[in-house]
């Protein structure tokens, strides 16, 4: 018999183990760890949303839905996207409800890529981008954003990465893991490049509600979607979902809005692999879109408070950290301590029982930084910061 490991498809075999997974195993089994290593809200989904899911079960709504998703949900999505992103879509043909944004990203890649087609994306980034591209037989072309630029994506770097084989430009603002947002002036230049080089833009805007502006970050910052810029709607796949802003990660619900030719192609895969997103999640999502604005803003304000705490404490500790405009991550620069991001994170875990994620788990551009998520209860965050302070204090004196 051929050894089973030799039966694994090359494309899967070649995908490296997730750095997050490695770290997860180290953290698990330790007691008294305060984890800033998560990538999801610490809040449960607001009760009215959970109640809507329960109600749908009580009413016996346990069937399949349309492959595209419930029409009533797609109509809510169209309204919401028009209000939030200033782009209009047709609920009947241009919206596809998926099992999280992760599925939507996978569908885009599989629907659009022929072997050898290039996808340009910016690092540090969400861990699934590179593997999703590779598993769809695409070629992942990463652009390194820099701590000096607050991890903004420079149009010049995008232009330098474009080749004849470039097909997709994949964007994520606000960015996981850095919390970076893209200034409008640069976003416009990038949009011009996409038009000039006829690229499809896939934009993952899962954190777009969690924006912080104003002197103290308490006001909700304005998010501009690249899909709303001139000439972009017809070449953009807008990905969004419910996980972050509505604290619904476990509901596994996202969506893609795009011209119908693209959603149709994505739906072809979705209908055979997934059939449809779970109906109870879809019913909960309708409630979230109709009545979730207040609860969402409450959670956003709670994040804003924690962000203020993190900024202040890192500044006091002398750990350089830019003020991220979105998401719920800080990405402090730890290079001055002379440790790699892996060493820093490991020692912080071993010596102080605080988990952060090494920046290199998000691509090599993340080396020199660590991701500290502030979607953790305030009092826990305070203890974690005290421990980090003790840790970097020791590093500084040594």
């Amino acid at each position, binding site marked *: 018999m051929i050894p089973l490991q030799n039966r694994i498809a090359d494309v899967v075999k070649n995908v490296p183990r997730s750095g997050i997974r490695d770290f997860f195993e180290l953290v698990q089994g330790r007691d008294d760890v305060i984890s800033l290593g998560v990538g999801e809200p610490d809040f449960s989904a607001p009760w009215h949303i959970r109640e809507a899911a329960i109600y749908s079960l009580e009413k016996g709504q346990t069937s399949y839905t349309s492959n595209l998703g419930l029409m009533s949900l797609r109509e809510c999505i169209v309204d919401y996207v028009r209000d939030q992103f200033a782009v209009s879509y047709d609920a009947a043909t241009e919206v596809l409800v998926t099992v999280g944004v992760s599925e939507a990203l996978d569908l885009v890649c599989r629907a659009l890529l022929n072997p050898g087609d290039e996808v340009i994306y910016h690092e540090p980034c969400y861990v699934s981008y590179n593997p999703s591209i590779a598993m769809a037989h695409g070629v992942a072309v990463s652009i390194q954003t820099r701590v000096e630029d607050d991890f903004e994506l420079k149009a010049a770097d995008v232009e330098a990465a474009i080749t004849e084989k470039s097909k997709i430009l994949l964007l994520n603002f606000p960015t996981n893991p850095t919390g970076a947002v893209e200034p409008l002036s640069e976003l416009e230049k990038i949009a011009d490049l996409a038009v000039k080089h006829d690229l499809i833009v896939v934009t993952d805007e899962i954190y777009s509600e969690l924006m912080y502006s104003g002197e*103290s970050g308490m006001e909700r910052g304005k998010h501009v979607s690249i899909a709303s810029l001139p000439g972009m709607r017809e070449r953009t796949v807008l990905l969004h979902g419910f996980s972050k802003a509505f604290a619904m990660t476990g509901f596994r619900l996202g969506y893609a809005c795009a011209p119908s030719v693209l959603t149709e192609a994505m739906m072809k895969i979705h209908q055979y692999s997934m059939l449809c997103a779970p109906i109870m999640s879809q019913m909960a999502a309708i409630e979230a879109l109709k009545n979730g604005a207040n609860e969402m803003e409450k959670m956003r304000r709670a994040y804003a408070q924690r962000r203020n705490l993190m900024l202040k404490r890192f500044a006091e500790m002398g750990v350089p950290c830019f003020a991220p405009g979105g998401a719920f991550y800080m990405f402090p620069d730890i290079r001055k301590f002379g440790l790699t991001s892996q060493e820093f994170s490991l020692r912080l875990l071993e010596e102080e029982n605080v988990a952060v994620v090494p920046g290199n788990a998000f691509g090599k551009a993340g080396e020199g930084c660590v991701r500290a998520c502030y979607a953790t209860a305030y009092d826990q965050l305070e203890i974690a910061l005290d421990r980090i302070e003790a840790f970097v204090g020791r590093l500084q004196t040594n």
Partner: protein
Amino acid sequence: MEALIDLLQKNARLSTREMSERLGKTESEIESALAALIADRTILGFHAVVDPDRVEKTGVSALIEVKLTPEREGGFDRFAQRIAKFDQVTSCYLMSGGYDLTVIVEGDDLREVARFVSDKLSTIDGVVSTATHFQLKVYKQSGFLAADSSTSERLPVTP
């Protein structure tokens, strides 16, 4: 300062320093904003929210619906203010609908509340009728759930 009020409504025990950290303001900014809110009576007071089932002292609480005949001058205000001034009254609201005032009254026992209603409340000129409802159990008070033991398990590291 809406954000400061928000913060205090959830937890009024935060120190000035903690509030300044959360709101990204200096401690002196917080102190002066707080003083202004108290001075102009935007903030009426601070108190602990207690689950009565968890304390030994057993008192009773009643919600009383009060119907009033409004006065030519001033409508309900004078009567309502007079009722609200009684120590036993913890809250007093003018209502729309089938009656005029909701009066929340606390007392040591049923008799004390009954005596308040018969001796004080119903004898006020303008009070047409009262209906007293005694509180049996607290499920939620001032935004806090009683006996909320729900926990959810998050994985320690996720992408």
